[in-house]
């Protein structure tokens, strides 16, 4: 699961342009990214060295995934879906693979929206 490294690199990269002293970095993670928070924090602590982010604290928040069917309007959560380990693994590379592995629990359609819990966002407090 060392894909967390790629993510940590991305977070550090995205902070390069931020001027001034950064005190707090909040990383908002969609549940669909299926990221191991501990590994990510470890990676962030290691990668921040020598970047001017030494003084920054990292905080993680995971947003639960929520889906809405475009066909029948049903709403459901990732925890309601039966997904195997391999599928979860694939989705943590590319969350859009949800459209291959998940189906609306009410009508079976793969045509649904990810209402919440897909992205990665970084918020900075100076």
């Amino acid at each position, binding site marked *: 699961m*060392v894909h967390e490294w790629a993510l940590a690199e991305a977070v550090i990269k995205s902070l390069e342009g931020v001027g001034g002293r950064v005190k707090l970095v909040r990383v908002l993670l969609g549940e669909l990214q299926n990221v191991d928070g501990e590994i990510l924090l470890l990676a962030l602590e290691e990668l921040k060295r020598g970047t001017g982010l030494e003084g920054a604290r990292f905080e993680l928040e995971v947003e639960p995934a929520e889906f809405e069917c475009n066909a029948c309007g049903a709403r459901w959560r990732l925890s309601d879906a039966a997904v195997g380990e391999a599928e979860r693994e694939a989705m943590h590379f590319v969350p859009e693979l949800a459209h291959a592995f998940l189906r609306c629990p009410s009508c079976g359609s793969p*045509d649904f929206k990810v209402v919440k819990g897909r992205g990665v966002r970084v918020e900075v407090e100076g």
Partner: protein
Amino acid sequence: MRALDPRLAVIPERLKGVSRVVVFCSGKGGVGKTLLSSLAALVAARRGARVGLLDLDFNGPSSHVVLGSAPPPREDRGVVPPEVAGVKLMSLALLAGEAPLPLRGADATNALIELLAVTRWGDLDLLVVDAPPGTGDELLDALRLLKRAETLVVTTPSKLSLAVVARLVRLLREVGAPVLGLVENMGRGGAEAAAAEWGVRYLGWVPYDPAIEEALGNPEKLLATQAAAKLEEALARAGVLKAR
């Protein structure tokens, strides 16, 4: 408080070792973008180039069918594409299995951003990109996110293809994407006049080659076809292949 998308920030980093990006596009479907882009990657690899192939046809991926069976990508500080016949292949099909993967445009944008943010191509002389038909999110975003991308336009000589490709060529100009030239596929010169009319360099034709169907999935057989030989000439004219 400022919100940032870390995925976008890391894309240039991921492509740092890539010397050249060439997008095979057309607007029109079924003209041979997938076949020719895969062949191009194989031809370049045979010549010793370090080559990657990115399948952007998320709704109908088939580069993996042309190249033949590939293992799934490996995870190592990101995602490492498997190598088939010297070509590093990245395709959602390697992750999605047999399931239909109906992506709306906004999903395609996100999927592309994720792929570009996590894929570790390493050092490449050439990254070949297989575009989907149409001029929707995948193509627009590829040209937006792969800043140094050059394009190679594929058409057949049919009126139906030329009418669509004419619009694509104007679009490429409007978004400022360099056009290396036009490759005519499954024809024998019928699209040359159109290239002249559009002010695009005509790179040559690749004939309809009945040996292709049997060779699909078999890189060696594909490389031995007449189609591969003719494409190699066109790519050399475009300056896409290094001299041997």
